[in-house]
């Protein structure tokens, strides 16, 4: 496959960074984006660590932005997805889509529930 495959949380972070774009993606905005779209509670520390790991792998690059008053005059560290990162996102989502295929997920859930109650 060649491209790095991403864990679920990393995938969410990468997708948020892609959606926000290189001028608006940073830890706080990524946390808000994931929280708003998935309804999951996301810890800022986890996003911070994930971004650090992704940067080490070369999947994202970072730079300091302009100082902002709402941040007490401090700049955010803006995140841009690298080419390699975009490839990893692509490979991971394709793998998921391939696995989902034409599987009807609603029926699958009902079937799984029935199996459990019998067991």
């Amino acid at each position, binding site marked *: 496959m060649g491209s790095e495959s991403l864990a679920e949380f990393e995938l969410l972070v990468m997708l948020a960074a892609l959606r926000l774009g290189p001028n608006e993606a*940073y830890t*706080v905005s990524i946390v808000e984006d994931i929280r708003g779209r998935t309804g999951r509670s996301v810890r*800022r520390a986890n996003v911070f*660590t994930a971004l650090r790991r992704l940067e080490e792998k070369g999947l994202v690059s970072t730079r*300091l932005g302009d100082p*902002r008053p709402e*941040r007490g005059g401090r700049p955010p560290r803006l995140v841009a997805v690298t080419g390699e990162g975009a490839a990893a996102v692509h490979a991971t989502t394709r793998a998921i889509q391939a696995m989902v295929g034409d599987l009807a997920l609603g029926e699958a859930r009902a079937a799984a529930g029935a199996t459990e109650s019998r067991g």
Partner: protein
Amino acid sequence: MSAPGWARWLLGRLAGADRVDEVLGDLEETHRDRVARRGRPLASVLTALETLDMAAALLREPRRGRRAFRTPARADIRSASRSKRAAVSWLDLKLGARMLSRYPGVTIVGGLAMMIGVGLGAGYLEIVNDFLHPNLPLEDGDRIVGVQTWDAAENDPELRTLHDFLVWRDEVASIQDLSAYRSIERNLGPTGGDAEPARGAEITPSAFRVTRVRALLGRPLIDEDGREGAPPVVVLGHRLWRSRFGGDAGIVGERVRLGASTGVVVGVMPEGFAFPVSHDFWTPLQVDALSYAPREGPPIRIFGRLAPGATLEEARAELTALGSRAAADLPATHEHLRPRVVPYTELFVGGGGSGRAYAVQFLFVVVLLILASNVATMVFARTATRENEIGVRFALGASRGRILAQLFAEALVLALAAAAIGVAIVAQGAGWVTRLFWQVTERETPFWLDGRLNPTTVLYALLLAVLAAVVAGVLPGLRATRPGLQTRLGHPAGASGSAMRFGGLWGAVIAVQVALAVLVLPPAIIAISALAEAERADAGFPTDEYLSARIELDPERPPADPSAGEEFAAAFEARYEELRRRLLEEPGVSGVTFATRLPGMDHPNPFVQVDSGGAGAGITAPRWVMSTSVDPTFFDAFGAGIVAGRGLRSGDAAADPPVVVVNETFVRQILRGRSAIGRRVRSTGRVPGPWQEIVGVVSDLGMDTDRDAFHPGRGPGIYHPLRRGDLAAGGSRSVRVAFHVRGDPAAFAPRLRELARAVDPSLRLYDVLPLDRPLDAGNRTQRLVARFASWTTALVGAIAVLISIAGTYSVMSFTVSRQTREIGIRIALGADRRRIVRAVFSRAMLQIGAGLLVGTAAWFYFMVYVLGGGDEIGLLVTTAGVLMLVGLAACGVPVRRALRIQPTEALREVG
């Protein structure tokens, strides 16, 4: 609005230069957003939690030389196990945190025990430091010093030092602006309106230069105000200005009433300024006008600021030299006087007991060790259930030190969490206790108490937490990993049951706790119920129909010689007799009486001896009684019946030999029912008082409601006739008045003030209250202290019970679970269940029984033999019974579990 300072500091320290902007900006942005959406309180909590989370993430950063973080997995545990190093790692702490939620019983009870232990130790240190070594919240406050004159012959401070002050003020070079003050109480208010007592200081104007605090309005006192013949002026404190003058911004230049005279307000000081201690107004101390001989005059306190460049030692040397010179020049008065320079606050609290106060700390360490050894019992039982895990670790090659380090880390997490809660409670409660302490000892709250936690206290709490963790984690760990055990532990599937056993030490610990609970709980219950009873104690008369007040008067100028004092005492008596006359003219008022103490108040309690009055039975041993001086109308005013002899008469104050009246309890307890009339009593002490003849016995009036927890409101009492000399209170005179009022006594209070003002505007009235309430600040504080002490005792007792139950439970649970197979097999073989139960219970009962026995014996020794109680044995039996039942219940659960085991299961485990 911005994020908490500690969070910025913490993350700033951890983030490193390349990440600091990012991390702090994120913190700021998130916090501000939260404050806007959820309000400040919730936002602060959430930000605090997130900051700790972030801090943990930053600690795991590889940049700072730590291991790269991975999700902790079995691989981590394995690698931690393999390590031969004994150091505590981050992972150990994380595993320790996990243990807290896995064993909630140990966490809650153990955490509570450690919280109490660490909290007590840290709280004590905080209070001692706040009391003995406070920070003076003034500019360069540590350079303000006090000059105290010590009387080496009496071993007491000598405060009549005006003469010396004038000498020192001119000569001392190492202290600048040497100042003096004396506390005064004056009726203060608008000239036309109500003037009520306020506490102020007659102070040399230089004192305001010492404090370096500017006036909020107008000016402070200046040197001209202190010159002889200067117009009378006053500077008001912020609190007084707000309460009595409604914060009037135009007050400067106004004339106000000040005792018998008036004065012009020249300034108002800012909020919080109550220098020298807790003073609300300041007038100039005109020392130049006072020409007192050495060791005469009013008591004053002297202070100043160390001159630039001068040290405390230099000032000490200079004053010592001046002291030696005075001793040579004035040997009659100054031979034993030693001036000494002390940090300012030591003028009031003294520094002598400092060493002892810190030595008591050792006791708290012992308490912590006892509590921690309890937790060790529980931790040992828990460790035993983890034999397999420990065995696997040994098998993987972990050293003993490595495993001990992990057990220590687990206990440390618990201890640190407990210490954090303990310190938080101390932060809330210590200020309150210090203020109470001041109220009890000095009856005032000094301005320098700020209620903030000392950093030393936090460090000390950390130290105690580590100590507790060593006892609770390492000691059981040492037992659980004894070299002999390792080989067996290495085979976790071994079928022969556990290799671990509880030693006799744990049993002893449980026994000691049960004994402690027996000893502490009944007195605590008695004290609490006695306090509740004190609120309803029968005073012997309808307390809600009487109004009372304390009346005080100061001489305008401190008298220089004793004869002037006698004159002043006569003037005071004339004033209060005039007040009595005017009161009796009021409709609805009757039975006006004066006394030094009124029923229901805290009374002085001397020791007295009684002689047989010539009957040949000799003199009794000193006995403790309560005493008060009352005027002849006292018994009539409260409707106390004369049981034998007579009451007091107007000539009794001058009677020779002196006469007294005693109450019925005195006859019952001290004379054991024999006739009192004609017998003589005297107070004991270094110099015994004169013999006084008992001329009458009156029915009991509540003399004290708190002092004797076993018999609230009752006690042997002596009534002396009221003499002028009884009314001296420092330089001033003080007496209490009480009278019957038809209707609501509280509603009569304003009229009483009016009448007193009409008699003399400088008569001060305090605590104008109906007699059904705690009568003065002393009484209220005393009740507060009694309540605090008894609830604390009850709490300690309850926790001792809780911990001993938890200890018993964990030991029993452990022992029974070790015998489960054996029990199962015995049942399978047809053994009698009752016999099995008896065998299992006997050990626990032995421990609890031993504790009860020791506790009861100690109880009898202290309560019955030493303190002379005896009618509370029912309560003791009940407590012991309840403890026994609770102990049985603690054993019951594991035993039931063992009895329910199926024989087949038991046999399968053996196979």
